[in-house]
């Protein structure tokens, strides 16, 4: 059988054109002869591929025909997403824009360089800084000079002036308990108190409550024989706003009387420990008594926190009374008995001051 004839047989076999007995015979031949079998398989695959190729070409022709009916151009116009104009501008001209920007930057640099701005800017700064350093240096020298002066002065006058700060304090009891501010005696090596007659007594810090800025001193000087009966009382209840008040103290080492008014029942930012008072006082007034118009002590002047002129704070007397109760029993000789009888009511301010001045002390602090 020639190849030509074999192919015809294979085609008839694949197309199912054989009769049953002929088909059987051919299938036996396929099994026995591997070469024939291979040709059958190959022919089948190849003609199938050819057939599929034909179908593909036909499908593509159909699709192309359909495609040709579509107005692609109009569709394209409608479907193109047009970027915003600035993006378009950038896309179309970015090379030109880049060149222009480079030229501009270069130009600025060149003109800066040629006018000397690039160099001198730093120098003026350096000169300014140097001037500043010189000035600081000078003030430093001045400072050390004045420190030396103070030192030498101190050396000369050891007898007269030894204390480093003064403030005010007032008697709580006749046996020598004195109230003042904690910040006055904080860090002090020794404390003494001086009365209106200029008599000084040695004192010790008996008890403190730093959280309320309260300190209680006790006179321990041997020459101290006790005070007369305390003329004022302590008013535990809250005072009234706008009440006339006064204080007496040693703002600059000399006694002074200051009247004022109670401007608020709360201190800074609503703090309820303090009253806000409008009264002209100085740091030396710290620890002084704050009287209401009837001569009751309603607070301890606390000049420390002043920020606005004429506006100060005073610790409510309630906290002093609590502090007194908190004094440990073993540090006291006698129980603290507060005066219950106010002998100042109805007196003028001058009379009151005259009667109380011996109960208000200048507190001297030695560091």
């Amino acid at each position, binding site marked *: 059988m020639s*190849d*030509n004839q074999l*192919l*015809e047989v294979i085609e008839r076999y694949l197309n199912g054109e054989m009769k049953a007995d002929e088909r059987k015979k051919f299938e036996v031949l396929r099994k026995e002869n591997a070469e024939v079998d291979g040709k059958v398989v190959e022919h089948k695959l*190849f*003609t199938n*591929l*050819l*057939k*599929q*190729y*034909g*179908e*593909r*070409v036909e*499908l*593509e022709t*159909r*699709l*192309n025909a*359909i*495609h040709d*009916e*579509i*107005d*692609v*151009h*109009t*569709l*394209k116009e*409608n*479907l*193109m*997403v047009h970027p915003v104009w600035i993006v378009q501008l950038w896309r179309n001209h970015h090379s030109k824009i880049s060149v222009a920007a480079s030229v501009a930057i270069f130009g600025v640099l060149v003109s800066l360089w040629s006018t000397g701005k690039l160099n001198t800017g730093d120098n003026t700064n350096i000169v300014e800084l140097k001037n500043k350093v010189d000035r600081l240096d000078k003030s430093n020298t001045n400072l050390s000079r004045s420190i030396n002066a103070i030192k030498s002065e101190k050396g000369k006058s050891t007898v007269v002036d030894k204390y480093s700060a003064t403030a005010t304090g007032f008697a709580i009891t006749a046996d020598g308990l004195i109230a003042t501010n904690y910040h006055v005696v904080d860090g002090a090596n020794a404390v003494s108190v001086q009365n209106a007659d200029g008599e000084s007594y040695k004192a010790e810090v008996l008890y403190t409550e730093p959280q309320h800025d309260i300190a209680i001193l006790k006179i321990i000087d041997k020459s101290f024989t006790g005070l007369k009966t305390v003329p004022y009382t302590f008013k535990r209840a809250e005072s009234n706003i706008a009440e006339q008040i006064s204080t007496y103290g040693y703002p600059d080492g000399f006694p002074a009387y200051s009247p004022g008014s109670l401007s608020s029942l709360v201190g800074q930012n609503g703090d309820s420990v303090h009253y806000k008072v409008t009264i002209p006082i100085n740091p030396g007034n710290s620890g002084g008594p704050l009287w209401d118009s009837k001569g009751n002590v309603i607070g301890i002047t606390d000049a420390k926190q002043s920020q606005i002129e004429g506006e100060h704070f005073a610790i409510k007397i309630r906290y002093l009374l609590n502090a007194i109760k908190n004094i440990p029993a073993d540090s006291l000789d006698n129980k603290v008995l507060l005066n219950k009888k106010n002998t100042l009511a109805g007196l003028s301010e001058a009379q009151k001051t005259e009667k109380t001045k011996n109960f208000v002390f200048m507190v001297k602090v030695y560091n």
Partner: protein
Amino acid sequence: MNKHLKDSTPTDSEVILGILNNSESALKRLYTAYFPMVLQLIINNNGNEDDAKDIYQEAIIVLYNKVKAGDFELSSKLKTYLYSICRRLWLKRLTQINRYGGDIRDFQEFLPIEEEDVDQHSDRDIQFNKMESALRLLGEPCKTIMEDFYIHNRSMQDICERFGYTNADNAKTQKYKCLQRLKKLFFQQK
């Protein structure tokens, strides 16, 4: 035009049945319904309208073959399926021509497409390209004889008459020779 296209959008089952029944109108409605979607994808992602045509027809053919082979399961909307195929094909094409910037602007939701679907398709495309050039090299009258007999299923009798062969045996011999040459040309190609 847009409105007209929208009105004539075929349902998914219409398309499947239409392909199975070789319906020309179903194919046309399918083609016109979703071409704008693919055109939009391609022209806004570094392509032109010719790229869109190529990619879209390729996707239609993938769908067509799957439906014809009977292994097409519609697990999503046909629209989504076609968009996903086109997206996959276009990404592949962009990568090949080094125009893919790592970012594609999408206009529809899409599904992950299995590599298999697209790769199988391109394998077959290579075979078809080989066949095409083999046929071209074969020349006439062999080309027409091959096409008539093996593609259009014409009988040898028809072919005899068409080419003026005096008897069927001559024609058969001629056909045999042509086939041998075609095979040789086909398998010679790499």
